[in-house]
């Protein structure tokens, strides 16, 4: 009996991880398709990111002669740490493979960033340095908003694990509750900033000088690039799960056979929302990003104030 339960737990954990790995590229595909649709273009198929990944996994790489072991380690660290983060994120239920305190969760996000930005500097390319420098600056300035919005969520959910706090958000009548709207809005702003989306960064831009994330990974190819792109997808899925979980916490307490499709629908819907947001905005000047992130911080602070005043 005990072994049976252990087996079930293991299967669920494996399914959780597999779903995140599968949803990541799908989410990227949905975002792109929505953007294309809204700008009256045909766009690539929704499943194109999977094909891209397959292609990249089959390719060899050209490794810069300047690079050190830090460069070799970067892609596995970026993807590995993102998967560990995914293991703590509630997707279809409040039971996750690896429950994590929200502070630990936020700080663990720094591990892939640290190695990714170091790899950008490791090839001795000016583009890599440029991207890395912007990446760490944006993330540093997003930090207060992230902490405050997670604090707000943790108050709402009455728990200090990431899964517990999202699942614990009291269900129902979200629109009547200003702090939930404010927190979800802040998290959405942060989602755009932390995942290199418009208006902070443009993943589809053609000029290296204006890039943030893409400039940093210019010298990655083949397997390394595949891992990094997969990691970006997983990160986007993590943030989408957090935002959609906050807005529809009910879906997390459904029975499993309903909850999994509900989770997929939620993530796809947030992909459409991201795509719509991107299609409707232009990319900001880099020097304006600080104000954008300050807005997010202020929103989170207002949410906390509303919570404690009410």
């Amino acid at each position, binding site marked *: 009996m005990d072994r049976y339960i252990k087996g079930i737990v293991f299967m669920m954990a494996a399914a959780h991880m597999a779903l995140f790995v599968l949803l990541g590229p799908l989410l990227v595909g949905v975002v792109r398709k929505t953007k294309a649709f809204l700008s009256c273009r045909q766009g690539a198929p929704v499943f194109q990111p999977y094909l891209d990944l397959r292609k990249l996994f089959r390719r060899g790489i050209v*490794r810069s002669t300047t690079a*050190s072991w830090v460069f070799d380690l970067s*892609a596995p660290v970026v993807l590995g740490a993102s998967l*560990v983060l995914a293991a703590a994120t509630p997707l279809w239920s409040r039971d996750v493979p690896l429950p994590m305190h929200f502070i*630990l969760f936020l700080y663990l996000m720094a591990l892939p960033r640290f190695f990714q930005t170091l790899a950008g*500097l490791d090839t*001795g390319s000016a583009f890599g340095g440029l991207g890395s*420098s912007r990446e760490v600056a944006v993330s540093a300035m997003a930090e207060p908003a992230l902490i405050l919005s997670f604090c707000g969520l943790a108050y709402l959910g009455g728990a200090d694990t990431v899964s517990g706090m999202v699942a614990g958000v009291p269900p129902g009548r979200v629109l009547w509750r200003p702090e939930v709207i404010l927190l979800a809005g802040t998290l959405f702003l942060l989602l755009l900033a932390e995942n290199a989306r418009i208006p902070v960064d443009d993943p589809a831009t053609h000029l290296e000088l204006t890039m943030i994330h893409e400039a940093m990974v210019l010298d990655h190819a083949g397997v390394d690039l595949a891992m990094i792109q997969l990691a970006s997808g997983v990160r986007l899925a993590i943030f989408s799960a957090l935002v959609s979980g906050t807005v529809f916490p009910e879906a997390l307490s459904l029975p499993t056979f309903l909850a999994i499709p509900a989770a997929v629908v939620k993530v796809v819907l947030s992909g459409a929302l991201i795509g719509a947001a991107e299609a409707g905005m232009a990319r900001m000047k880099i020097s304006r990003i600080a104000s954008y992130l300050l807005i997010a911080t202020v929103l989170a602070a207002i949410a906390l104030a509303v919570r404690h005043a009410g």
Partner: protein
Amino acid sequence: MPSALPYVLAAAFLAPGILALLIRDPRRSRLVGFGGGGAAAFLGLVVTLVGAMREVPVRIPLPAPVPWAASELYIDGLSAFFLALVFFVGFLVSVYAVGYMKEFDEHRRGLAAPLLLNLLLLSMAFVVSAGDMLSFLLGWEAMSLASYFLVVLDHEKREARQAGLIYLIATHIGTGGILLAFLFLVRTTGSFSFNGFATVPIADPSIVVAAFGFALLGFGTKAGIFPFHIWLPYAHPEAPSPVSAVMSGVMIKMGIYGIVRFLFYLLPAPPAFFGSILLALGLISGLFGVLYAIVQHDLKRLLAFSSIENVGIVLIGIGAASLCRATGRPDAARLLLAGGLFHALSHAVFKTLLFMGAGAVIHGAHTRNIEKLGGLMRGMPLTGIAFLAGSLAISAVPPFNGFASEFAIYRGLWAASWSAGSRGILLAAMAGLALIGGLAVVCFVKVVGTVFLGNARSAQASAARDPSLAMEFPMVALALVCLGLGVFPSLVLDPLMSITSFLSPAGAAVPAPAGKPFTVAIALVIAIAGLSLLRAVLLRRNGLRAGGTWGCGFPYATPRMQYTASSFADPILHVFQGILRPHTTRKERLSGRFLLEVEQDTHFHDIIENGLYLPVYRLFVQAAFQARRLHPGYIHLYLGYILGTVVLLLVFFH
């Protein structure tokens, strides 16, 4: 038996130092002096750990220096914690110094260094175990003087002499503050011993405020808290690297020790606003320190500013603990104080490591300017790995010790923010801590990226090699401690929770957080190792070619085209230019209408130094010039002064 121990330890520290003065061969002198000091520190560490496990507090009476007050060593849990810190870092730094101080062999410039370093370690051990005001001040002064002479060891350099002078003035202003703070307590309680201070209640709250104010000035100067920090970015870079490591790793913690001793042991029931002030100062120090660190080019100066940042983080923990204690949240207070002390230890471990790494870089490449370094990971792989581990730890990346200690502070703040009252300041502290953490990542990605990765930016950088074993061993050991304490934080946190248990004797500890560091570390290792394996297999199948870095299609990329450290810091500089105040000078050389050369120089002047200290300094200099007229050098005038004074005395006091 224990009453003889202090003398044995003192002899073990001082004898090798004195012996080193007598040995002619500089290599042997180093080995005896620093090696002996290291052995003494190791002995001290063992005795402290064994002793602290058996029983604290320990009281050892000392012969009284003055007839009207008794002297004693009083070692409780807090003292034992700091003693262990001093001895642990002291041991590793002594080993490191055996290799590093070779640079001072020429003309035997480093002759007195072993004696001074051993004296510094011994006096710090004395400071944290002193049980009365007089022995404390005696140890404090010995520590200040020993460290001053170590800072000016390179006294042929003008910068070192200047840094020494600034440090000497700052530290004595600090000692003055501490003396005044103690005198307030002595006057009200009529006792010289710490236990005496603690037992006699002070009725007048203004005495408590005055004593705290002066203690903050005194200990804050030593700890490098904003705005008393200005000596730190001068003294730490100029001192030889092992000395910077001790000063930054341990000596500034003596200020922290003083603040904790004063606030939680000596002052009865300090009001809540003390905690708020400390918390605010901690936030300002943290933010200020990391911002100035980001824009530095000098590796050791950068690390010095980052020490200001980390002392700020420690202070956030201690200040919030005091605040929570005064507002009836004892459980959170206990965790916060333990977290603050834990961060003091974490900082001691990784900052010592980073200063040692900086020393190894200077040893190998003979420059502290990070814009001239680059690609050192190739020539100095061991130093590079150790430095990277230290950088991950100082940037509070899990699973390293810097995160473990900041996490304890966060959990304390979070637990405290659940009950009403001063919630705003607690949440602001969390947001501030997060910003500081994010900026620390910027700072140390910049350092590791420009110093150890990419291409060498100068010939000396490409020639740099890993140093000798004596310098490697302490760095690798500290890197392992960074990781070990991050994976098993309870090794430090549990003893600290029992040291701070006096804050909430009956209360339950704040529950352990979900996601054990060990589990997370294992998950990370499995994921990263698995993916690396997958990568290796796929590369074997798909092929791996070496090629030049992509240069936009241009084939002749040079190391100078790499991103520089200044460019890396630019986005942050741009956002915070209101605080950082960059000062740029630009020189152009023209030939007719053609621009031949441009020279641009950007400096960052410390706003406090320029805005607060320099005006005061100028005032003093002016006053001194006026006062100089009084002594023009004529003996008969001086005799006249004496006569005048005697007459005045007779008139007034007859």
